[in-house]
Every structure is written in C-alpha cells, then in structure tokens.
C-alpha cells in the first residue's frame, strides 16, 4: 500500500505518552551534552544515535495494537508484539538514513552554515531511509507472492504492514 498520513491516529495517543517521549528525548539530549563535556566529542557523538525513545515507542505501538483488537473482543497480545517488531524493522532501515545524516553533517558542518548543513543532512536521512524501506518492501512482496498485491495472504505480518 501507499504511505498515508492519518492525522486521526494522533487521537489514539494520550498526552502522557507524548510527555514520556518528551522526557526521554530531553534527558538523552541533555545527557549527550554532559557526556561530550566529560569524555569528549568522540564518545559524546555516539549518543546522538542512542535509541532512547525507541523502547517507549515500541511499547506504545504494542499497547495500541492490543487495544484495537480488544475493542472487538480479541486478545491482541501477539499482534501487538509483531507490530512492535515490524516497527523495529522500520527503525533498522531508518538507521541507514541516520548514518547518511551523520556522514553529511561530519563533512559539511565545517564548510557550510549550520542550518543549511542540518537541512541537507535531514533530507539525506529521509531519502536514504525511504529508499531502504522501498527496497526492503519490494523484496518482501516478491518473496511472499510477487509484485502484484491481488493475492492476499492471511498472515499477521502482511496484515499489519498493509494497515
């Protein structure tokens, strides 16, 4: 399926779930600064790619999928876990974009204005991550039934990835 933006889904997320991610994101950003001050940029820089908010996000996805199933009277435990696993697979592809972001920042920060460098780096992240996702998706669809999507297989993974 095509990528879709569904603003209505934001309503499923409660304010304290965003507050949790704000807290973790803020803490790791502050900690990265303190670590760099204490141990230098070579160690501090590692923590710019620390998966601080990932456990909270994966847990939220698992919880939301479970709740969706529960509304219809089903146990969504397995579905929630698999959905979190699919999200993690997406994050793995996103890290390829994160590497592109870091390479662009490393090379261009000393040469270009900061705002321009970070803008180009963010585009590099988005482009690389999206490309990796499309390649993986094509390979997955080829292995599980060809390019055509007319044949639907009743597997949890396929169903979740098509939502």
């Amino acid at each position: 399926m095509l990528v879709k933006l569904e603003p209505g889904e934001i309503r499923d997320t409660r304010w304290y779930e965003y507050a949790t991610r704000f807290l973790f994101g803020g803490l790791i950003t502050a900690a990265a600064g303190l670590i760099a001050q204490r141990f230098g940029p070579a160690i501090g820089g590692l923590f710019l790619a620390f998966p601080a908010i990932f456990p909270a996000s994966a847990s939220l996805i698992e919880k939301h999928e479970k709740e969706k199933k529960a509304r219809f009277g089903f146990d969504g435990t397995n579905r929630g876990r698999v959905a979190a696993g699919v999200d993690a697979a997406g994050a793995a592809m996103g890290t390829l974009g994160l590497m592109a972001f870091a390479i662009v920042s490393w090379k261009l920060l000393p040469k270009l204005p900061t705002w321009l460098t970070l803008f180009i780096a963010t585009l590099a992240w988005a482009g690389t991550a999206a490309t990796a996702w499309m390649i993986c998706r094509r390979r997955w669809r080829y292995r599980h039934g060809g390019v055509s999507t007319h044949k639907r297989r009743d597997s949890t993974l396929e169903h979740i990835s098509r939502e």
Partner: protein
Amino acid sequence: MVEIILRFFVGGAVVCVFAVFADALKPTSFAGLLGAAPSVALATLSLTVWKKGSGYAAAEAESMILGAAAFFIYATVVSKILRSARWSALSVAAASLVLWLACAFVLRYAVLG
C-alpha cells in the same frame, strides 16, 4: 546549567514533533523509520555549534556514524526477537540497550582507535 536545561527542552520538543508524525504515518513499517529519526542529533548538533563551534560538532557527527551502525544492529535484533519470542516490546527493547552500548563502544574503539 542553562545550557543543559536548554538542551533538555529543545531535545524533548524535537523528539515530540517526530513522534507526532510517526503516530500519524501508515503503514507501521514506514512509521518505524521515524524511530531512527535524527531528533536528538538535530537538537544537539545545533546547540553544540552555537557553544563549541562547527569543528567540535563535526567530530561528534563522525562518532554518530558508529552509533547509528550500533543502532542498526540493535533494531534488527529487537525486530527478530519480537517477531519470534513471547516477551513484551518494552522488556526486549530496554534490555537490548546493553547490546547497543556494547556495539557502539566496540565499533568506536575498532574504527577510531
């Protein structure tokens, strides 16, 4: 102290912006890309350039490449475990942070010395 507080609020705000997009995007696998969004890096690098200059920030970005490689290993392992084992997402993701730490430091010392 002011700098640390500023980092906290800027970092938290940027993370929230990406979180909103992640919640609204479908399918789930595509939304997962934002789990590895450079939210912390955007906040940190811009503040670091302001305080310590672009050379220092570039040195942090160089190390970030290795941190991102460790994140790739971490996310791949977490994905495989969640799809096959019966543990909760939070316990797997949190426990696997040790894996990220180990990979990041091994890579850092192997590559940069």
